[in-house]
C-alpha cells in the first residue's frame, strides 16, 4: 500500500511523447505528403534524414510517439472497465520498448550500413 509508484517514468515519456505528437509529428507528416508528389523532393528528404543529426531526433519522435500511444491505451483499458494488472502493464510498456528497440535497430541498419 505504501509502495512508491513507478508511474513518473511512464508519465514523463507520455508527456514528452505528447509534445512530439503535437509539434514534430505533424511537421513530419506534412513533409512526407508534400514531398510525396515529387520523387526528387522525396529523394532530398531521405538524403536529409541520412545524417545522424537528423536521424537521432527522428528516432526520438518515433519512439516517444510509441510510448505516448501505448500509455494512452494502457490507461484507456482502465476507463473501459478492464481492470489492469501488472500483466497489462508489462504487455503495453514491453511492446513500446520492443517497438522502440526495433525502430532504433532498423534505423541504425539504414543510416550506418
Amino acid at each position, binding site marked *: *500500500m*505504501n*509502495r*512508491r*509508484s513507478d*508511474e*513518473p*517514468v511512464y*508519465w*514523463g515519456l507520455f508527456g514528452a511523447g505528447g509534445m512530439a505528437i503535437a509539434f514534430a509529428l505533424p511537421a513530419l507528416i506534412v513533409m512526407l505528403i508534400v514531398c510525396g508528389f515529387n520523387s526528387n523532393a522525396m529523394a532530398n528528404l531521405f538524403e536529409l534524414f541520412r545524417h545522424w543529426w537528423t536521424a537521432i531526433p527522428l528516432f526520438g519522435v518515433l519512439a516517444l510517439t510509441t510510448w505516448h500511444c501505448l500509455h494512452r491505451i494502457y*490507461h484507456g483499458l*482502465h*476507463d473501459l*472497465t478492464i*481492470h489492469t494488472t501488472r500483466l497489462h502493464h508489462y504487455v503495453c510498456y514491453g511492446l513500446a520498448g520492443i517497438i522502440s528497440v526495433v525502430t532504433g535497430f532498423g534505423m541504425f541498419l539504414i543510416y550506418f550500413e
Partner: protein
Amino acid sequence: MAEKIMKFSVARYRPETDSEPHFQDFEVPYIHETSLLEALNYIKDNLEPELSFRWSCRMAVCGSCAMMVNGVPKLACKTFLRDYDPNKVMKIEPLANFPIERDLVVDISDFIEKLERIKPYIIPAEKDKNKPLTEGYLQTPQQMEMYRQFAQCINCGICYAACPQYKLNKDFIGPAALTLLYRYNIDSRDAGARERMKIMSQDEGVWSCTFVGYCSQVCPKHVDPAQAIQLGKKASAIDYVIKMFKPGEE
C-alpha cells in the same frame, strides 16, 4: 404570478423494508426562486414525511446536500427548478459511488477516512513549534493566492461521485483529498510536505488519475481538483527524480 408544477422521481431506500432502491413520484409547485432543496423540504412537509436527505446551511457552504440530479452530481441548495424543463421529470438519486444509507443519504466515511489520512491541517516546522500564538504565521497575499482556490473545498463529495477512476477503484485517494493534500503542501506556513508526498506518490495517489476532468466540471465551488492533481503529478515526478539521486533519504 401563477405557480408552475415540477414532476419529480425520487429514489427511495429504507433498509428495514426495501431490498433495493426504487423510485417514488411527486409533484411540487414552484416559483422562479425555488431551489431543489426547498422542493425536497416541500415533499417532506406536505407529501412524504419519511423522505430522508441531508441538508444544513441552504447556501452552498456546508456541503451536506449533494445528490444526483438527472444523473449529474449537484448541491440541492444550488440547483434551481427554473433551470429544468417542467415538461420532463426531474430524477433525484443519492450521490453516486457511495453506499446508500437511506433514501438520499449516503455513507461518505470512505472519503472522510482518506481526508484524515492526508493530514489536512498545517504541520508546523520544528523551529515554529513553540512559537507564541500572538506571533502567528505571516504570509503575503501572493503566498496565499497560491493555494486559495484549492482551499475553497467544502467536502461535499460531488467530485467523488463524478470520478470514473474512483468508481472503478475505491482505493484511489480521490479528487478532493488529493486537492487538499496539494493545498497544504504548497502553503508557505506548512512543513508536512514530506509526509504527504508519500501518500501522493503511491499508485492510489495522483497516479490513479487519468485527467478526465469531470470533477472540475461539476465542483460547486470551482476548486478545479483536476488541476491540483496534475500539479501534484508534476511535484511527485520531480520528487521521484530527486530520490533517484538521493536514495538514502526517507
